[in-house]
């Protein structure tokens, strides 16, 4: 549905996006992840035709954005970072305006706008001036605006920014519901959000793609290592030395004293050594009171990818 090939964007001397390529299949939700200033918004602005690229091509449904801008724009609904709202209009007036702007046939306008307002939860606010709406509701109007014209592709730039947790869950639910029949690119720097909604993730850093895969496989790459938090009673030096003798241990460190004689330990190993640890501790008569695997979150992946800049394939 969306094909991006060798896309480059320079602002004068500054290279914002450097030769990136990825594609999004029809009906897929792609998470576009990166720290601030990584080039997320620039890429999205180029896909939607707001900015021209310096080099490379963007095709949506087979149409090139440079040669057939109107065909592409018809197919895309875009929610930019700052929702493009006219504050002197009411919600209904604004959505009517957007409908005409997107050339929605007059007859369909009314029904479509009512459906969209219902979907994003704006029905009770339709007569209010956008200026008087809270940030969360403005964000909803922004999302509603992107949905006008029933586009096949949705490009959402940080759709949940500035919302309270309850609203975030609601907007996520809306996006999830929308994904049934649409292709979506969603950018964010909030990682749980991406892992909750997206089927595939592209991590971009300093204008280049740092990693691209499903959230599951990305975490598997890092989960090659076992990370355990252990609570063991006994002399800490003996325990540390004893565990160090196990094959595959990368790292063992006592972290905090718990109670009279027990310590918390952080353990990292190249393979699953839980059995070995259990028997070793039984040997030296130091009971394991607690054992908890530390799961790798998307944050860990993100940090490891972004800081090392290594390619995770």
């Amino acid at each position: 549905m969306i094909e991006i090939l060798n896309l480059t964007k320079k602002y004068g001397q500054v290279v914002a996006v450097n030769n990136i390529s990825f594609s999004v299949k029809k009906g897929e939700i792609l998470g576009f992840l990166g720290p601030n200033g990584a080039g997320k918004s620039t890429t999205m602005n180029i896909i939607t035709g707001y900015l021209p690229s310096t080099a490379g091509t963007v095709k949506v449904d087979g149409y090139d954005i440079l040669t057939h801008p109107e065909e592409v724009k018809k197919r895309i609904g875009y929610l930019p970072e700052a929702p493009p709202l006219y504050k002197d209009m009411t919600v209904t007036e604004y959505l009517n305006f957007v409908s005409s702007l997107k050339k929605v046939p007059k007859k369909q306008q009314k029904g479509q706008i009512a459906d969209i307002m219902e979907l994003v939860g704006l029905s009770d606010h339709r007569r209010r001036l956008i200026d008087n709406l809270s940030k969360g509701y403005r964000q909803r109007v922004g999302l509603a605006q992107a949905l006008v014209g029933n586009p096949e592709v949705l490009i959402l730039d940080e759709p949940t920014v500035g919302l309270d947790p309850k609203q975030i869950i609601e907007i996520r639910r809306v996006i999830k519901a929308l994904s049934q029949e649409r292709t979506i690119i969603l950018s964010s720097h909030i990682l749980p959000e991406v892992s909750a909604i997206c089927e595939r993730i592209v991590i971009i850093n300093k204008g280049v793609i740092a990693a691209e895969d499903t959230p599951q496989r990305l975490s598997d790459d890092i989960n090659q290592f076992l990370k355990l938090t252990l609570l063991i009673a006994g002399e800490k030096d003996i325990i540390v030395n004893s565990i160090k003798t196990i094959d595959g241990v990368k790292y063992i460190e006592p972290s905090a004293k718990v109670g009279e004689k027990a310590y918390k330990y952080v353990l990292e190993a190249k393979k699953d050594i839980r059995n070995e640890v259990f028997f070793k501790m039984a040997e030296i008569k130091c009971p394991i009171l607690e054992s908890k695997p530390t799961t790798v979150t998307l944050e860990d992946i993100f940090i490891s990818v972004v800081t090392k800049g290594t390619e995770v394939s």
Partner: protein
Amino acid sequence: MWTVAKREIGSYFKSPIAFVIIGLFILLISIFFWPKLQASRGDFIDILGDMGFFLIFITPILTMKMLAEDRKNGTEVLLMTSPTSLTQIVLGKFIASYTVFLVISGISLIYPLIIMAFGGAFTTQLMGGYLGFLLLGGAFISIGILASAVTENQIIAAIISFVALIVMWVAHTLASTVGGVVGTILNWISLISRYQVFTKGILGFAEIVYLLSFTALILFLTVRLIERRRWIQG
């Protein structure tokens, strides 16, 4: 195009801006009209000349927010990513400003009507003068729109168009003092000089073509300017 125009017209009348402009304009005309009425002189065509001068002050206020505001508020993204072309957007903005200008022109017809009520006539000369006024308004508004495409700051946009229009006026006054070749050139450039032909009661075909093509050219430049900005800095 009409969508954009409709929205902008609505926006004019939602904020006090349109009313302030209309009020200001009527006040200015009235100040100039009053002595004439007292002296019972029925030549409104002179005032039509003055109205051209008032436009220098009013057009910048009328047009300053057109494109600058969209850029500042980020609504530009909405316009540019919709399947409406840039030319249509700029024309829509122009039509909106021009509509308010037409309202002003319509209201100004009250004064000739007052004269008529006292036995004056709505002469063909006056009709020609009004045609000139409508064309001049278009040219001025196009300059204002171009100025508001240059910056995202409304005040700066207003100042730029004000200065540009003042230069037009100065060129016109200079032309008559300098004379010679320079004077001819200045006269040729100045919109005001072109307009004065109408207020003298001459319906000049060259002037009509000049003012219309001037407006079209400036609007075309506006589109090119925005396009260029997108490519250069984004």
